[in-house]
């Protein structure tokens, strides 16, 4: 049933490939993956490699972190070239220097950050790591 599970998506991301689904009915892209096209609900989709490039739409600097995380760090959402929005961490900016004018609208490339298994997680985690282009 699933063309791309979270594990397959994470494994590819760790190798530097951002995968997604392209809908053969409405041509829109879905990433991260889900069972059906996020726009039209069709299951007539295929796995494709996305460009891994996007633009930061918004962000925050987390100062009070959940158990298992060390603040401060930047959580951001990027709009990918293919359309989907992706949440991740900006990894090449000092959180103390992150302001709206030097973050929002900046171009990023998408890499991977691997988190060890923590309490209440089933296995290791992989989250998008955004690098702002020079």
């Amino acid at each position: 049933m699933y063309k791309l599970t979270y594990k397959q998506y994470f494994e590819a991301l760790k190798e530097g490939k951002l995968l997604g689904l392209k809908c053969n009915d409405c041509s829109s892209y879905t990433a991260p993956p889900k069972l059906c096209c996020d726009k039209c609900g069709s299951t007539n989709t295929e796995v494709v490699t996305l460009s891994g490039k996007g633009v930061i739409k918004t962000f925050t600097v987390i100062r009070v972190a959940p158990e298992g995380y060390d603040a401060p760090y930047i959580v951001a959402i990027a709009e990918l070239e293919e359309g989907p929005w992706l949440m991740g961490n900006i990894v090449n900016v000092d959180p103390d220097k992150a302001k709206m004018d030097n973050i929002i609208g900046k171009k990023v490339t998408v890499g991977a950050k691997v988190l060890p298994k923590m309490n209440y997680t089933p296995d290791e985690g992989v989250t998008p790591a955004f690098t702002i282009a020079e």
Partner: protein
Amino acid sequence: MRKVCVAGVGMTKFGKSEKSSIEMFAEAAMEAIIGSNIKPSDIQCLYLGNVFGDFEEGQALMAPYAAREIGLSVGTPSLRFEGACASASMAIRDAFVAVAGGFYDVVLAGGTERELAMGTPLATRTFNMATEQYYEGMTGLTFPGVFAILSRLYSKKYGIPLSKLKERMAMVAVKNHKNGAKNPLAQFRKEITVEEVLSGPMIAEPLQLLDCCPFTDGAAAIIITTEEKAKKMVEKPVYILGVGQGSGAPLYRQKDFTLIESRVAAAKTAYAMAGIEPKDIDVAEVHDCFTIAEIVATECLGFFDFGTASEAVEKGETQIGGRIPINPSGGLKSKGHPIGATGAAQAYEIVKQLRGEFVERGTQVEGAKIGLTDTLGGDSGVICNILFGIKG
């Protein structure tokens, strides 16, 4: 569909509690039962909101123990509702559905939560669990973080400089603390200033400490019954005129979530069922988990045009005496936010507002006839809206 009413309501003091979640709920429930002039054995089902009992007290399976704690009979079904911060509103909505549809005549609905037992790091982690875990939660996103990224989207979208927006957000906190200071059940009974909000420690930029609601212990409960029975139980039954609930996608899939589609959809359903419009609402308890959250909620509910609610706050339109009083109880911000109980505490406030019981407290919305509750669960995964009225 039968007409459905609220009879009695009950609520504990919010804040730090030395009582267990079940003890808190039992007190709120018994107040609602006594206020309805019924006996526990008259209740046919318990719908109990509770989110993190497992982490707070190591207590799963709370509903049946709560049922027996207050003397419900062995044959009474009891169900736990988990919809993150909207759990109790979901319980109330389902109680409405069961009574309206004719399956039950008398349902006890509410919720309880003992968050302060967890401490901030674990509490922040458990709240993070209500974000989508594989593609969102692992970024270390917190709930202040959710509304922090929303604040910046909002500032950009509507061209309101962040410094101006933050000042108006602070005014939401000031207003809600002003109301909460008069509420004997509120966690924080003190007024604050815009300057205090803007000089507080940063939690998730640009949100500061006083932009955020607290962790809270507390419980609330209401009796939901038929119009016919309610008229026999109490002098002033309050009707449930309409309900609506939506299911939102994870944040990254919602894209521009300054307009929360699940809320717009839930509110539309509730308004249509009640046959009323946003302008008909006299008083509302709105999910102000963060200052910006109240601003976007009042737009999605149709009280203000999109992009204009922060200006309306500045003009005082959401104060008691303003065009649409929002959160006369003090809201989640000042009254506190025990997430499993919050929706029932909002209902408690609206029911008493419509009965005109807050004159002495100094926060009565004069002549209020129709009220609304708005509760958000997760980062808008659940939105539940309930409309109350003094006429059916």
